[in-house]
């Protein structure tokens, strides 16, 4: 009650200050310029509560990425700090004409495309099992969470020993012995390790979509004589589309960052480096901040393009583009 009583006076005052120059309207185009005390307090609290999180996120990402652009325009090798100078886009020319970069780029793309495609299929299967299984649902879900939770490096070591002749149980499956010493088999093992580790995550995201499929609709389809496959493609998939897109976007960008598995499994040998691996090697092993930063910026741009394409292709279905159902 008292909330409504007081503002009348305040509103008149606000009305008067507002009229002379329609400034508030230009400032962000807010619809209701006379804010009640309550509204103002709410806005202040909202900003205050978000400020720490926003500040940390921006300080640790936005500033470094800008700094990284600055570093990428310099010759800056920590072994020869005296030679530091501004060289414009020379580093970009060096990287983009370097065959190692393009090999790593190709490897990363290959790993991304293959693992995400396989994970989508396996993840869908796993999601359906986790969602619909008649027995042992808890057991299946618990087991599936283990690859998700386990430290990637630990899993990578397990795969490495499994595929090393002598310590391994899998190496002997291949007649030629040491699969981690050859390029094609190494890449296959890296992808296997990635798929093992991240399929459960994909499945969980897809399961969220599965939960949205109305049971009635499936029953109705059954009554109309739809086969299991028809129910899947005609009923489930359309409902799940947003969840599938979210899962695909997240996994694609995550797969593009592949690093841990490669580091442990092959250390980038036999041309199995990903772009992340290459950037790391130039920076920490080579101590070349200029080239390392150039690669960082290029990776950032690539990821931005992938994300942009996803959002453009799928429009409102992409996460974050619509914030409508708040409250």
């Amino acid at each position, binding site marked *: 009650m008292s909330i409504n009583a007081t503002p009348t006076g305040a509103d008149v005052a606000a009305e008067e200050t507002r009229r002379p120059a329609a400034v508030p309207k230009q400032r962000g185009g807010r619809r209701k310029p006379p804010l009640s005390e309550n509204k103002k307090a709410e806005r202040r609290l909202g900003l205050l509560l978000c400020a720490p*999180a926003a500040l940390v*996120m921006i300080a*640790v990402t936005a500033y470094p990425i800008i700094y990284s652009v600055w570093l990428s325009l310099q010759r800056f090798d920590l072994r020869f700090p005296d030679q530091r100078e501004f060289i414009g886009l020379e580093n970009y020319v060096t990287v983009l004409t370097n065959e190692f970069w393009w090999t790593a780029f190709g490897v990363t793309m290959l790993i991304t495309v293959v693992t995400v495609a396989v994970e989508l299929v396996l993840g869908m299967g796993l999601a359906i099992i986790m969602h619909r299984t008649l027995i042992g649902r808890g057991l299946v879900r618990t087991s599936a969470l283990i690859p998700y939770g386990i430290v990637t490096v630990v899993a990578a070591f397990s795969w490495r020993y499994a595929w090393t002749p002598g310590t391994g149980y899998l190496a002997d499956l291949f007649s030629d012995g040491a699969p981690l010493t050859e390029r094609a088999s190494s890449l296959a093992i890296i992808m296997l390790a990635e798929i093992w580790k991240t399929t459960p995550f994909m499945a969980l995201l897809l399961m969220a979509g599965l939960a949205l499929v109305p049971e009635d609709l499936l029953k109705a389809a059954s009554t109309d004589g739809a086969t299991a496959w028809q129910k899947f493609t005609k009923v489930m998939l359309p409902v799940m589309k947003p969840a599938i897109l979210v899962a695909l976007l*997240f996994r694609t960008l995550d797969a593009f960052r592949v690093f841990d598995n490669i580091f442990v499994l092959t250390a980038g040998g036999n041309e199995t480096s990903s772009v992340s691996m290459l950037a790391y090697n130039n920076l920490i092993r080579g101590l070349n901040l200029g080239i390392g930063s150039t690669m960082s910026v290029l990776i*950032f741009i690539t990821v931005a393009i992938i994300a942009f394409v996803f959002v453009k292709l799928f429009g409102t279905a992409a996460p974050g583009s619509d914030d409508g159902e708040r409250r």
Partner: protein
Amino acid sequence: MAVETTTRAKLRWGLLDVLVVVFALVPVLWIASLSFKTPATLTDGNFIPREWTLDNYRTIFDTDQFVRALVNSIGIALIATLIAVVLGAMAAYAISRLDFPGKKLLVGVSLLIAMFPQVSLVSPLFEIERQLKIFDTWLGLILPYITFALPLAIYTLSAFFKQIPWDLEKAAKMDGATQGQAFRRVIAPLAAPGLFTTAILVFIFCWNDFLFAISLTSTERSRTVPAALSFFTGASQFEDPTGAICAAAVVITVPIILFVLFFQRRIVSGLTSGAVKG
């Protein structure tokens, strides 16, 4: 007839279940098996050790290298989790409950950070942290961990916050509580399960990180276990590091297994609720 089909259906699901369980557990069991093998039987390729030993565990807990890394891992992950959950809860509350300018921007920024290629930050952070003298310190790792955990925390928490009966908050305000008090006294206790779930997810994330851990540290002072593991390889103090690496790997897998065993339901609901909402 009906009984028969359900039995058969159960059998079919049962088979699929077994397949999933085997697929998920074999690599974990393998590294556990290696960690219990004696050096003599390490290379026999047997899935079940012929001779069991705890020597590998004794070795790692005797070395400073591992114990120190374990302390670092636990300390850094706990501190980062605590801060990320507190900051994330504040932001998530504002996002799910309050109307204020810049809300969409914040949601967009956290989404961008969730998709950010972490390696892009390695070189600038390496240089910035050297200048700020926080390279190779706990703080130097905690900062990026908080940053990348925040989007996860904000998303999961705002999903949880939306399920809370907010009329209680109104009731509290009717009784004269301010918005801040309503948050602390009424909503926070209701949100505790969501906070806990988020904390587990964030902890798993920090516990898992490898890239920052090897790039932003250079000594045992702040190196976490995943990073230390990769330095066991070829280190002279172990004759053959395989057994030691496996034992260390098992040790840092134990907390994950415990989380998953006890909080499976929470973890699943945390991850899926954040996803539905997008």
